[in-house]
């Protein structure tokens, strides 16, 4: 019983981080209709930014997150403005190819710049935990979970209640009408992609404090982010939280009861099932 509770807690903590990873993907997909296969590579890049801030400037990985976010926002803005804006109206297939190409470029640039070694962001409190009766809460995971949930909820508030958030949602709904109301789409697309990449980068910084990173982690994280966005639906950040928690708990339970090697079968199997049964997501609007 205690083991089950512990596994559920681990799954929940993992799920919060998953939700945060998928949030940027869902935002870019839902608003810009760009399916970003390079999403995981940006998560990886964010992890390295945090790692370098910590290793060379001795900035605490959690306090350094705003800097990571700012750096990643700038990268994302430039990528959208300079590259992806060029193909926004091309067939959807071309956006898949270009973002995949981008994933390859980022992965190998990272390999050249950071080497292929496994690294971790290891602050002094990395091994600390809070013990509550029979269950153990690892401090870094708990902090990562807290930041992830706070940012995800913050994102929801931002999209619903700020002028920029409204402009972003308006663009998603009707590009022509948004333009008539004075929204500059080239800039707005770049800002939206920038926010998505900043979220991915922040998630990467958090990921680096609880897991090992190397230049190749991107592809698997992209796939996981897809699973979460599809399970949760694209139109609602709270759906992404539910999707992330669901996947985190599902993976932990599968690892406990069936075997760790089946964790991926479970998450991708559920993804395929959800796609077949309800392609707009469990919480998404019906098509």
């Amino acid at each position: 019983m205690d083991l089950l509770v512990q596994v559920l807690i681990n799954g929940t903590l993992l799920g919060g981080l998953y939700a945060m990873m998928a949030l940027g993907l869902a935002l870019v997909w839902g608003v810009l209709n760009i399916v970003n296969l390079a999403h995981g590579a940006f998560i990886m890049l964010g992890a390295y930014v945090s790692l370098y801030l910590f290793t060379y400037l001795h900035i605490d990985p959690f306090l350094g997150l705003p800097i990571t976010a700012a750096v990643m926002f700038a990268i994302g803005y430039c990528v959208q403005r300079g590259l992806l804006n060029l193909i926004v109206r091309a067939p959807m297939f071309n956006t898949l190819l270009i973002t995949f190409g981008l994933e390859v470029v980022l992965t190998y640039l990272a390999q050249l710049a950071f080497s292929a070694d496994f690294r971790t962001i290891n602050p002094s409190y990395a091994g600390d935990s809070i013990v509550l009766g029979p269950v153990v809460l690892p401090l870094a995971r708990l902090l990562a979970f807290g930041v992830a949930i706070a940012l995800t909820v913050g994102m929801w508030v931002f999209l619903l209640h700020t002028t920029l958030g409204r402009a972003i949602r308006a663009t998603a709904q009707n590009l022509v009408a948004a333009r008539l109301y004075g929204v500059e789409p080239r800039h707005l697309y770049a800002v939206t992609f920038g926010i998505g990449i900043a979220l991915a980068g922040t998630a990467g910084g958090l990921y680096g404090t609880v897991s090992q990173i190397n230049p190749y982690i991107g592809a698997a994280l992209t796939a996981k982010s897809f699973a979460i966005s599809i399970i949760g639906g694209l139109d609602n950040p709270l759906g992404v939280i539910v999707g992330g928690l669901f996947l985190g708990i599902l993976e932990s339970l599968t690892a406990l009861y069936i075997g760790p090697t089946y964790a991926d079968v479970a998450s991708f199997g559920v993804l395929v099932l959800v796609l077949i049964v309800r392609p707009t997501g469990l919480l998404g609007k019906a098509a």
Partner: protein
Amino acid sequence: MKTLRIALVVAALVVLAAVPWFGSDVLIQFGINALLLAVLAQGWNIIGGYTGYASFGNSVFYGLGSYGVGIAMAQWHLPFGVGLAFGVALAVTFAVLLGIPVLRLRGHYFAIATLALAQVMIAIVSNVTLAGQNIGLVLPPLNNDPLFYELSLGLLVLATLTVFWLTRSRFGFGLIAVRENEEGAEVMGVNTTLYKTMAFALSGVFCSLAGGIHAYWVTFIDPESAFDISLNVKMIIMAVFGGPGTILGPVVGALSLSAISEFLSSEITSLASLFFGIVVVAAVVLMPRGLADMLRRFRKTGWRYFAENIRTHRL
């Protein structure tokens, strides 16, 4: 003009077939890889180029073909030919069982569902004892590169002739109708589910045969390499680079990209993959309809061709 083109293709084929007699070992080995990639690109062309369904799951067929040969030869000690047939049977079963539900999805959702299927297959095969779990299988070695080369070339010819037949058959027109307007095709009486599933299965047959030949050639398979997703992306890029939905486009794309990447990896080893990514990005921006379309239109418009592509697709 038409006879000239046929003569050119035949001449190129004769030169390709003669490579084992005059080429070095390195060239023959490069050739096997390049020809098998071309088969994959051509196989993908049937579902992706003609039917318009962006399959990211064709690497599953390749993996099933590899494992068909691997299991038949390493576990059951059956001949290579039986292994190939077993692999094809696995691929067709997969295409029919999973194709029918997954092919109902459109656009991004289809692409992602097939991507996820590939991930599921890696994880499942890693747990199957018959398939050697995540350790893999070792096949009996056969040191005969010229044979593997001619087999690969023969398979590529077969795949290309099939696509040629497609463009002239009722079945092929049905697939193009699905790509251009699926609802319209349905209304016109095309059984779209049947057509899509058959295209998926046909595409799977060629990919699984390529996987089977590759498995026997390298004599070792494991889940990660047999179901490698980047292989799937490679075949898409090669088909798109050459011209999807054309007869020779995927072959030209595969052979030229393989040659470029081979040249680069011998010159600057670590930069070959990076280069591959850059080519993909540049090709999508500058020539989104592939080499075939570029060559056709470049004569008229010159460098403006690129600018025009950007202008039509940018925000």
